[in-house]
C-alpha cells in the first residue's frame, strides 16, 4: 500500500468539491472538535425534523482527510433517521479502528469505504474521525438519543 492508494479518488473529489458544507439556520446541537496535533478543526451542527430525520451542517479547515470525511459524512447522514445515522457512524468508526483489515460494507458506508486505506495510518485516523466525533457530540448536545452517549472522546 502506498500513499496514492490511500488518497482514493473519492476522497480527493470530496476534498476539492465538498458537499453540503454550510451551517444550519436553527441547530439543536453543535460541536466544535479539534485535532490538537495538527490543528484540524471542524464544527458540526444537527437538527431533527418533525419526521425524526437528521439534518447536518458543518464547517472546518484542515487536511484533505478531515475535510473529505466531513463532506462524506454530511452527504451520507443528511436526512437519515437517527438510528440509521448512528449505524453509519458506528460502521465508520469501526472501519477506522480496523487497521485496514476487514471488509467495510459499502451498502452501509457508501463513499465512506474510500477511507479504509486511511485506517493504516494512525496519525490520520484522528483526521478521518474528527467530523464523526463532532456529529456524535452534537447529537448528545441536541439531546438526540444515540447508542453511546458520552463515549465521544
Amino acid at each position, binding site marked *: 500500500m502506498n500513499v496514492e492508494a490511500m488518497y482514493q479518488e473519492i476522497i480527493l473529489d470530496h476534498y476539492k468539491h465538498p458537499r453540503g458544507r454550510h451551517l444550519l439556520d436553527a441547530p439543536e446541537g453543535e460541536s466544535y472538535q*479539534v485535532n*490538537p*496535533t*495538527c490543528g484540524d478543526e471542524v464544527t458540526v451542527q444537527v437538527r431533527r425534523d418533525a419526521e425524526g430525520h437528521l439534518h447536518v451542517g458543518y464547517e472546518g479547515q484542515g487536511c484533505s482527510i478531515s475535510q473529505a470525511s466531513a463532506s462524506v459524512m454530511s452527504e451520507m447522514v443528511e436526512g437519515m433517521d437517527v438510528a440509521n445515522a448512528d449505524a453509519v457512524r458506528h460502521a465508520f468508526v469501526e472501519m477506522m479502528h480496523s487497521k485496514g483489515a476487514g471488509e467495510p460494507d459499502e451498502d452501509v458506508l457508501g463513499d465512506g469505504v474510500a477511507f479504509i486505506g486511511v485506517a493504516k*495510518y*494512525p*496519525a*490520520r485516523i484522528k483526521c478521518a474521525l474528527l467530523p464523526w466525533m463532532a456529529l456524535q457530540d452534537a447529537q448528545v448536545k441536541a439531546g438526540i438519543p444515540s447508542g453511546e452517549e458520552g463515549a465521544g*472522546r
Partner: protein
Amino acid sequence: MSNDLDVERIRQDFPILTRTVRDERPLVYLDSAATSQKPIEVLEAEAHFYRTCNASVHRGAHQLAEEATDAYEDARRRIAGFVGAADSDIVFTKNATESLNLASYAFSNATAKALHAPDSVDPRFVLRPGDSIVVSQMEHHANLVPWQEVCAKTGATLRWIGVDDEGRLELDSLDTIIDASTRVVSVVHQSNILGTINPVAEVMQRAHEVGAVGIVDACQSIPHMPVRVEELGADLVAWSGHKMLGPTGIGVLWGSREVLKEMPPFITGGSMIETVFMDHSTYAEPPKRFEAGTPMVAQAVGLAAAVEYLERLGMDAVARHEHDLTVYALDRLREMRGVRIIGPTDAKERGSAISFVVDGLHPHDVGQFLDDRGVAVRVGHHCAWPTCRRFDVPATTRLSSYIYNDTRDIDVAITGIRAAQDFFGV
C-alpha cells in the same frame, strides 16, 4: 526453603549480581526497597526502542512516530494490566515523588486559581484554613513534605495517624483524626522503613465517608505483591518503576476516571493541551493532561518489560518468596542479642523491608561492616525521619530483599552484624 522462585535462575538475568565489591567480596544486594536491580530484558527493551523506532510520540505523522507512539501506549496498556487498571487511568511521571506531587498540586493549584476565578476549578480541590489533610506517622518524605507544602500554601492543617510500638497504624483514632474537616487522606500501603502493610482500604473508606479524596502511596507494595489498584479503595495511587525492576526516571499515578477528569493540570506545556492561544489554553483529557512535554518513552517501554518479567514469575509467587525470606530474616534477627527490630516483629501483614538497631552501635557503623562483607543495605532515616523520631532512634539499618535474594544473603548479613558487635565490643 521456598520453591516459589528459582532464585539461581533469576540471578542469571541480573548481570550486576555477579560482580564483587570491596576486597573481592561477592555482592549481596539487600537494598531493593531503595531501588531494585534490572534484568537484561529491561535494558534490552529500552535499547531496542532506541535502535528501531525512537521518535517523538503523539505528534509525528511518519512511520517512526507511529511506532514510537504504539510502543509508548502499549507500555501503558501493559502496566495498566499489571495492576488491573484501564490504560486511560494511568499517568506516567518521572517517579513516585512526582506522582504524589501531581496529586498534592491539584489542591494548591485549584486553591490559587479559585482566588481569581472560583468557577474555573472543581471545589473539591479548593482548600481553606480549617480544612485538614491527613497522613500517617510512617510516611516517606515523598508523601509528607508535599502535604506540608499544600498546607503552607492554602492554610489547611496537617494531621496524622499515629504509629504504635509494634509499628502499626493507630486505627482506633481513625474516626477522630479523619473528620468532617478532612479533605485529603494520603497513606502508605507498605512502609519502606517499618515494613508494615497497612489496611489502606479501611482508611480510604473512612476518607470517603467524610468526602475526602483518598490517596495511597503504593511504592513498596506494587513491586512486591499482587495489587489491583481498584481494591485499594483510593482515588489516586502512586508508585515508581525503578523499585520493580524498571528503569530509573519513570513513575506512575493511577487515578479513578472521575477524579482525574476534574483534577487541574500540574506540569503544563506541550502535549497536554487541547487549544492554545497567547492568553489562554484549554486542556486535554487525562491521562494526557498530566503528561506535559516529551515523555519518558524508552523508560515506559523498559517498565513494561519489567512488568512482563514479574508477570512471568507471578506476583503471588513473588509475594510468597519474600514472605518466606522475611520470616527467615526476622527469626535470625530476633535470635541475636542487642538487636531491636523497628517495625512489626512477626511476618504477618508485613513486607520484606526490615529495619533494626543494634545496642551500642550506630547504624552507620553497622552498615560499614556489612559493606565490608559485600552486603549492600541502607542505613539512615530512609526518608522517614519522623518515623525514626517516633521510635526514638536517629536512624536504622535496613535489610530489604527481592526476587533475586535467598536465605544465604540474610546469613551473610547476620554474620556482618555480629562482626560489628564483636569489633565494637558491644
